[in-house]
């Protein structure tokens, strides 16, 4: 009872922060139109806005195009596509909302995440006639991964079905089934027409059978965010300052509360300190702070934690975070190239940064039916569950919807955010699995460029035996070194004399030879070297694998010397031996050579050798010079 009184009297004076609502859905299902309609119906438009939209629409020969309200960029209006998410405040009664409009186009997934990641509720717009489409499923999956708890489905364009109950109930049941598979609880499924305003702010005359809430009613019912104050304390250290002779440990509280006198554990090292003071500038003095506040602490003893160290209650095992060097995580993947096992990243977790490697890809989401399948790579814009191995124990709290922590992002060597990783929990080591924890370099690509004066790259020369790969590669290496470029040649015979001396020439061994060469090339390139690989590498599939191992630094060069020329040159006498049957499985004679379909550079044989050398050198310089 007492609690109720406090809450009531508080609500009178308390202005809650605006509730962010994200609007998602397949392209052309009417997201932007819906937002325009919502703002118009709730009288949230500024004077002049409406006139502006009418004018922009008229210029383009359109009827009133509501989406122009949001599509503020010239390209968006001209192409009729929302490129980037935007935010618009609006008010329902005394409650403030912020609408986030997220683009529906597939390639703009990252912009959608940017808009949607902090939303409290989502409106999933589904065309009543078309039903759930590919992006509907993708967006629904994302709503689950980012932990949006309240989902309202708007069956837009229901007027096209004449608001026919039977047809709409059928679509509703399909959509509910889809979202049920994702364990998303649906707050309401509203049959509506955003263009005409049916069931948006006012109840439609055309769907008298529908007894559920209008969209505006459903939004008003979204509960305020859950309090994080009652949970065990967590504060990731953001920075440590020294001002006026006092050391401050600065950070934002993710969960719980902290009071002067509390004993805190600091990071994985397990040092303990007592909070001497909760510090703020120009604020009421309070010896306590709660979740969401950005504060500074004075510690006793006066320790200097590192950025990223998690502060949590000492002396209470039950209140400690998880601790593991292997973490299971969900993943949404934003890079243009697929993710593969063995790739290394920085896992940013709040303010902490951990070196991690993808130890396994445990399941990949099939976007046709949203089931989990086995897979060895995650496609661009794909979803998966993976295991990350860190070089040391990581302290974390598993992700749960509505909380700010437990949400990691993966960052590549170019400092690009390439994936979002809501953490599931510590990973058990499966039977027979090797507990490897590879580490990644902390030297960024940019730093290497600075130190070496050039970028790195792998130039993969493929061609028949005797085509001149090694000769051209060695000459280019020399020419590059004269320009102060650090270049290395990995050539087939040299590799086979050492690293690959256990391998023969069977397809399996050739495959392994190429795999090893690709990994060595990758390591060298990551250290900033220019690597020229001269390997027959006859099979398209093997070269494709090398490209996958190396990544985007891989450049295929075809030394296109015809068989007759190679056989005529026969510098090592190999063709003669092969013709005599002394060398089995000799490429070009008794084993296939699959020429590259679209190499980045082709060195034709009908030109003098020096020209091939110059062409290759110039090609490499163009790529590696900053």
């Amino acid at each position, binding site marked *: 009872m007492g609690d109720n009184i406090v809450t009531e009297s508080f609500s009178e004076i308390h202005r809650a*922060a605006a509730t962010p609502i994200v609007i998602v859905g397949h392209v052309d299902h009417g997201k932007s139109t819906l937002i325009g309609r919502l703002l118009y119906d709730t009288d949230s438009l500024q*004077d*002049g806005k409406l006139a502006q939209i009418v004018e922009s629409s008229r210029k383009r020969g359109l009827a009133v195009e509501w989406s122009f309200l949001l599509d*503020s960029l010239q390209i968006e209006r001209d192409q009729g596509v929302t490129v980037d998410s935007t935010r618009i405040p609006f008010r329902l009664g005394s409650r403030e909302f912020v609408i986030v409009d997220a683009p529906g186009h597939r390639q703009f997934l990252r912009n959608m995440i940017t808009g949607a990641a*902090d939303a409290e509720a989502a409106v999933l717009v589904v065309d009543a006639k078309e039903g759930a489409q590919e992006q509907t499923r993708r967006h629904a999956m994302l709503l689950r991964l980012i932990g949006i708890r309240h989902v309202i489905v708007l069956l837009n364009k229901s007027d096209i079905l004449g608001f026919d109950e039977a047809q709409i109930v059928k679509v509703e049941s399909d959509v509910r089934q889809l979202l049920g598979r994702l364990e998303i609880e649906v707050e309401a499924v509203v049959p509506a027409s955003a263009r005409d305003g049916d069931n948006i702010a006012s109840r439609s005359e055309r769907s008298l059978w529908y007894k559920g809430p209008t969209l505006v009613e459903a939004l008003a019912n979204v509960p305020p965010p859950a309090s994080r104050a009652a949970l065990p304390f967590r504060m990731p250290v953001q920075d440590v300052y020294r001002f006026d002779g006092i050391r401050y440990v600065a950070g934002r509280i993710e969960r719980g509360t902290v009071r002067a006198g509390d004993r805190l554990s600091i990071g994985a090292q397990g040092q303990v300190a007592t909070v001497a003071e909760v510090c703020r500038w120009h604020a009421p003095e309070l010896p306590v702070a709660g979740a969401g*506040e950005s504060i*500074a602490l004075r510690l006793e003893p006066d320790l200097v934690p590192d950025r990223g160290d998690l502060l949590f209650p000492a002396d209470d095992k039950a209140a400690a975070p998880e601790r593991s060097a292997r973490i299971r995580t969900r993943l949404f993947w934003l890079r243009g190239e697929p993710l593969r096992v063995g790739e290394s990243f920085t896992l940013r977790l709040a303010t902490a940064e951990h070196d991690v490697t993808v130890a396994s890809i445990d399941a990949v989401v099939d976007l046709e039916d949203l089931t989990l399948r086995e897979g060895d790579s995650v496609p661009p814009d794909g979803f998966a569950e993976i295991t990350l191995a860190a070089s040391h124990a990581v302290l974390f709290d598993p992700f749960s919807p509505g909380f700010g922590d437990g949400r990691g992002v993966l960052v590549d060597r170019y400092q690009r*955010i390439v994936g979002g990783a809501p953490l599931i929990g510590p990973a058990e080591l499966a039977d027979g699995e090797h507990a490897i924890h590879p580490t990644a370099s902390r030297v960024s690509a940019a730093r290497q*460029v600075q130190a070496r004066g050039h970028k790195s790259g792998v130039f993969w020369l493929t061609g028949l035996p005797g085509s001149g790969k090694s000769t051209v590669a060695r000459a280019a290496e020399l020419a590059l070194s004269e320009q102060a470029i650090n270049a290395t040649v990995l050539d087939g015979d040299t590799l086979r004399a050492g690293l690959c001396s256990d391998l023969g020439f069977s397809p399996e061994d050739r495959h392994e030879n190429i795999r090893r060469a690709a990994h060595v090339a990758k390591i060298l390139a990551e250290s900033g070297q220019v690597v020229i690989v001269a390997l027959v590498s006859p099979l398209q599939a093997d070269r494709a694998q090398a490209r996958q191992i190396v990544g985007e630094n891989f450049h295929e060069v075809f030394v296109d010397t015809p068989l007759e020329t190679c056989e005529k040159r026969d510098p090592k006498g190999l063709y003669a031996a092969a013709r005599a049957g002394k060398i089995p499985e000799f490429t070009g004679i008794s084993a296939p050579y699959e020429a590259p379909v679209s190499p980045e550079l082709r060195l034709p044989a009908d030109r003098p050798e020096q020209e091939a050398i110059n062409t290759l050198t110039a090609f490499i310089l163009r790529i590696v010079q900053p």
Partner: protein
Amino acid sequence: MTQTRILSRDQSTTGLAQPRIMDDLDQLEAQSIFILREAYRKLKPLSLLWSLGKDSNVMVWLARKAFMGHVPFPVMHVDTEKKFPEMYAFRDEYTKKWNLDLLLGYCPPVEEIDPSLPPAARSAARKTAGLAAMIDKHKFRGVIAGIRRDEQATRAKERVFSPRGAGHRWDVRNQPPEFWDQYATPYEDGMHIRVHPLLAWREIDIWRYIEREGIPLVDLYFAKDGKRYRSLGDQDITNPIESNASTVAEVIAELETSRTSERAGRAMDHESEDVFERLRVAGYL
């Protein structure tokens, strides 16, 4: 007052002091402090653009909150030399009072600016050129700017940490993902990041915060003879609005009923549909 009473009631039941329940301004403030602290940690050298307007004063204030009363990086005033005299006086007074490390930059004459821009935008673009020169001169990796999403639709598309590539250009088609408070860092030489700690604030939030904190402002924001400035640019391209609001509280009351946009007095916004986008892509705030 009411809050104190509630707190003491909580205290009586649990025996421990309880944290304040955060209202909307507390949340905006906490988020802005977090952003400023990220910028200070990640982007060196860093500076803050102090236009002397209400938003950038709030920003300086928030920096002092983040760093316990200090502003541990320079503040930059890119002077068009066409500001109101009151603004220069304000600058000199608060540079001293707030112990700011002030950097002054100047803008090239308008004749050197892209003649294809409409006149007021061309004048505004002078500031972009002056700013670019300052960034190049000091090799800033981070520049904190006080833009807000609700000011202008193109700004609504911004990131909190917004990378600027060669020539300081904003690549609006290719903005990095930004979520869960994880921000972009510069990945190439010559890049810098525009940091926007006020992106989520609205005009009325700014005014309510000014009222709550007692942040000083140039008098031009308050009505004299039935007019006041709602937004302050150069003298020749900013117009006052009709208003009788002569105190912060009266401005707030006025805004609560206003339906015109804040930048209505900025001439360049009305010259053509895409002019603001063109200015911003080229590096305008």
